């Protein structure tokens, strides 16, 4: 799609993408168009509400992958920002009075801002200590939320901004907002990964020491993805809150979200843009299929995760694409000067 050319006799060309990627992108675009049209003639209102969960999962998986898959920051505490986004959107809509779409986006921005000081605390820790530290931060966020006056303590808050809005309008608003944000988050991730920052991040993913020796500012890049991924988690949390109409500390700050994100990214394929999307779809499908089986649902998820890790260590997208095909072309192919 982009071709860099040197004028003169021997011309070096660097190609990024091509017809196969365009075709894959076209299929995805068609699916998005279908999803945009579908609520009016295919799905019931209940399906539409369920699909918001899928879009939130795509955002969560994409954001967690950006941070862990590319930045090498294995956090088990992103529920801190899911919760902050959920509580934030309710305050921004009900107290500040922002319209819902703006409140959701602002809640994501607030979470990105919150992540900046948090990163200075957490980045002092390495490896397993970093992971544990993120969980501690999430628990602190939860406790502070419970204790803050006006946040409903242990029972949480309800969204009132939708009162007086008819059900169809409310469901449609949340659905289109979630669809648009999922598309935007994926596209933004693609643009980021295609930029020079993305090249540096991929290098960090493979070898931090070598990346630094070639001039990549490892710390700064990691901070960028941590802040961006936390903003993404906040957006997803805000969507979950406006979709469910209420938040409680136990549900919004649940470590279960981390388990979901890891599942999505691992079965889809760590360190690829396509993987988390595929992973979110599979996770969502399993969740819908097995919902009525109670605990067996968790057992089945665990079994699928183990099978994928053993049989396809690079995830199902890695298995399907074999590293040769990208819908979102971030790689470079050289056509040597002749």
């Amino acid at each position: 799609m982009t071709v860099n050319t040197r004028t003169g006799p021997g011309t070096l060309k660097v190609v990024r993408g091509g017809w196969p990627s365009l075709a894959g992108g076209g299929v995805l675009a068609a699916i998005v168009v279908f999803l945009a049209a579908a609520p009016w003639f295919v799905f019931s209102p209940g399906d539409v509400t369920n699909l918001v969960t899928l879009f939130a999962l795509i955002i969560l998986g994409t954001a967690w992958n950006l941070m862990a898959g590319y930045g090498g920051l294995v956090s088990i505490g992103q529920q801190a920002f899911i919760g902050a986004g959920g509580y934030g959107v309710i305050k921004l809509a009900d107290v500040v009075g922002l319209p819902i779409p703006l409140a959701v986006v602002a809640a994501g921005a607030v979470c990105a801002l919150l992540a900046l000081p948090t990163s200075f605390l957490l980045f002092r820790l390495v490896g397993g200590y970093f992971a544990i530290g993120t969980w501690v931060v999430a628990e602190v966020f939860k406790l502070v939320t419970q204790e803050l006056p006006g946040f409903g303590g242990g029972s949480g808050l309800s969204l009132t901004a939708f009162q007086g809005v008819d059900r169809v309008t409310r469901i449609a608003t949340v659905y289109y907002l979630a669809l648009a944000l999922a598309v935007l988050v994926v596209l933004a991730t693609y643009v980021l990964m295609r930029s020079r920052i993305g090249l540096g991040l991929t290098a960090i993913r493979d070898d931090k020491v070598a990346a630094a020796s070639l001039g990549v500012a490892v710390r700064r890049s990691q901070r960028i993805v941590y802040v961006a991924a936390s903003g993404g988690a906040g957006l997803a949390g805000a969507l979950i809150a406006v979709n469910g109409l209420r938040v409680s500390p136990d549900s919004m700050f649940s470590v279960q979200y981390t388990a979901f994100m890891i599942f999505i990214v691992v079965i889809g394929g760590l360190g690829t843009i396509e993987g988390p999307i595929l992973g979110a779809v599979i996770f969502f499908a399993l969740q819908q299929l097995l919902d009525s089986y109670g605990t067996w649902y968790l057992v089945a998820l665990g079994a699928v995760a183990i099978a994928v890790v053993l049989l396809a260590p690079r995830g199902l997208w890695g298995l399907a694409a074999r590293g040769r095909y990208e819908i979102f072309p971030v790689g470079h192919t050289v056509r040597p000067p002749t």
Partner: protein
Amino acid sequence: MTLLHVDGLAKSFGLVVTARSVSFHVAPGEALGIVGPNGAGKSTLLNLVTGAQPVDAGTIRFDGADITRMPAARRTALGIGRTFQIPRPFEGLTVFENVLVGSTFGAGARRKEADEQAWQALETADLTHLANTPAGSLRLLDRKRLELARALATQPRLLLLDEIAGGLTEHELPALIETISAIRDGGTGVVWIEHIVHALLQVVDRLMCLAQGDVVATGDPREVMASDAVAAVYLGSPDLESDTP
């Protein structure tokens, strides 16, 4: 004028002293060879100069500026390039992309310029035929070449090479020797750690011998190799004999 000036460098890992008080300097267009038995502290010295590991004591000056505590990436941007003794390719990237990281971040080149600098580095390291190959699938020899190409793509003014010739056959050596000589003659300062002494002697202007964190001898390469101090260090070590024809 010196490019790199290292003074009184010290580093220990627990009880293992890898640098006691190491001082040396390198001028632009000068090649310094480093030899020494296994575990002498040669690679550690490169890690200290590049900032991959922090020093315990001493100072490192590059181009007159004190860089002792500067982060590794900034040293690279200033013009210090290095290869790793055990290659560390970005396995999920192609050979070209690996080198592009160097030209983009180390040399600060943009787009077309970065592509071209990367390609030139591949040409110098004789790797253009593998440009689109995933780096994870390279054999050891090509991984070493990739180390060289990536370091060159950062457009270094000081190039630090760690056993870059290990594993090369006798008839692959002359090309590498020629390449490194040409880089040096172009005005780049070179530090080359190598066990293959006869290759080293064809390039370096000065030679330093390290043992257990101490500089045993430094000066004219042939005189250093002939000195009793160096002979004593290698006594009982088969390293040199096996590699010298």
